[in-house]
């Protein structure tokens, strides 16, 4: 897999560290235990397109929001996680 980093350009995926589902951007407000359980542990785990967080640890260190097909490994869209989070606010 090759990921196009918005800052650095196209790089081998070994330069990136995988964190997990992009739902981790949607941290729940307040102290609702059920919401936190869902946030930390529950995953949709689709077999098609999955929105994920990757960090370009061997490049610019930016956190990236990557939409990837988890069956074909095709990278569909890469954005800065910060931009995705701000757009959602």
């Amino acid at each position, binding site marked *: *897999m090759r990921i196009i980093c918005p800052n650095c350009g196209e790089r*081998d*995926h*070994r330069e990136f560290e*995988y*964190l*997990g*589902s992009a739902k981790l951007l949607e941290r729940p407000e307040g102290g609702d*235990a*059920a919401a936190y*359980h*869902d946030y*930390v*542990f*529950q*995953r*949709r*785990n*689709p*077999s098609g397109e*999955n929105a*994920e967080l990757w960090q370009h640890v061997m490049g610019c260190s930016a956190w990236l929001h990557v939409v*990837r097909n*988890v*069956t*074909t*490994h095709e990278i569909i869209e890469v954005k800065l996680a910060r931009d995705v989070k701000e757009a959602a606010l």
Partner: protein
Amino acid sequence: MHYSALQILKNGLSGNKGWKPVWRNPEPKKSYDIVIIGGGGHGLSTAYYLAKTYGIRNIAVLEKGYLGGGNVGRNTTIVRANYLLDGNLEFYSHSLKLWENLEQELNYNVMLSQRGCLMLAHNDGQFDSLARRGNANLATGDDALLMSADDVRAFTPYLNFDDARFPIRGGLLQRTGGTARHDAVAWGYARGADMRGVDLIQNCEVTGFRIEGGKIKGVETSRGYIGASKVGMSVAGRTSQVAEMAGLSLPIESHVLQAFVTEAVKPVIDTVISFGMGHFYISQSDKGGLVFGGDIDGYNSYSQRGNLPIVEHVAEAAMALMPMVGKSRMLRSWGGIMDMSMDGSPIIDKTPVEGLFLNGGWCYGGFKAVPAAGAAFAHLMATGEKADWATKFNLNRFETGYVIDDEGTGARPNLH
């Protein structure tokens, strides 16, 4: 037919014409008492124990492809009980006991070979943690032998002991661990279940659930609707997707794990060895191939093939541990889809849907669990109670905080 030396002799003398197909190929009935989704190791052993131990004969196992065609036929065949935490300890201990009697139980040769499992330590911290693990295993009643570097050298002299980065400090050997013939395990359980009247239905994909008033009524399949008062899911790799059809969200991600085998060579490795510094393990099959594997690729995947970086990583680990491996040529590599749970431990539990049961989240440890998981899942489905040796694999443990994080890596499935 009861298999025995006499049968082999008789059939050998009569042109081997007396052997019968090992299981029937029945049409699905309109309804069953219990439907198991998934005809792999776990599904088949569940059906076997339901029929054998609990006398429930009106059971169907529904398999999308062919019996034993999934992960049970594609793994590195290791059997061991050297976990660290309560929950896992007693479960795998029980599983190993079932393994030890499995051939007699099934009247089928699963070729269990208790050749030992050796875990290596490369520094003092690792050695201490192996000592702790060994004590936990001994306290559970399992075998553990802490070995100094000299002991390890005498046991496996061909390892690279003086590697500059990863010198071998010592090891922990479980002499009761080993390997088994993976396909035979599936076939043995399938035969045992079929003999007791279980319908093993292949090429039958479950496409939906019929749920009324929060209670399971049956399953929609590619071969029509099949009614059932109880349904068990045992579909490693696809657990999230099958559960989603019942409206459930689970603490599971699917990841791809690769394994490798070299061309057959003369006997060289008479045990199972895990390298402590990279997730690498190796054994030799009875056919002679060196069977080895490493980490999962590290990101969600439903692709039953891996990417090359892990191939390279595993090959590097092999060369660091056992430089002679470089002389042999790799024959095949393949990838299988793992249910990676959020704490690295499995789930055997009821679900919020009445009559729908879940056995999943086995990460890459499902093979060694086949006997005990089937027995525990059967116990749960038949009695509604947790089996003594599987009381902690609860679906709600992520809410209650009683997670079983053997690796200590937190809610990061790609790190387990």
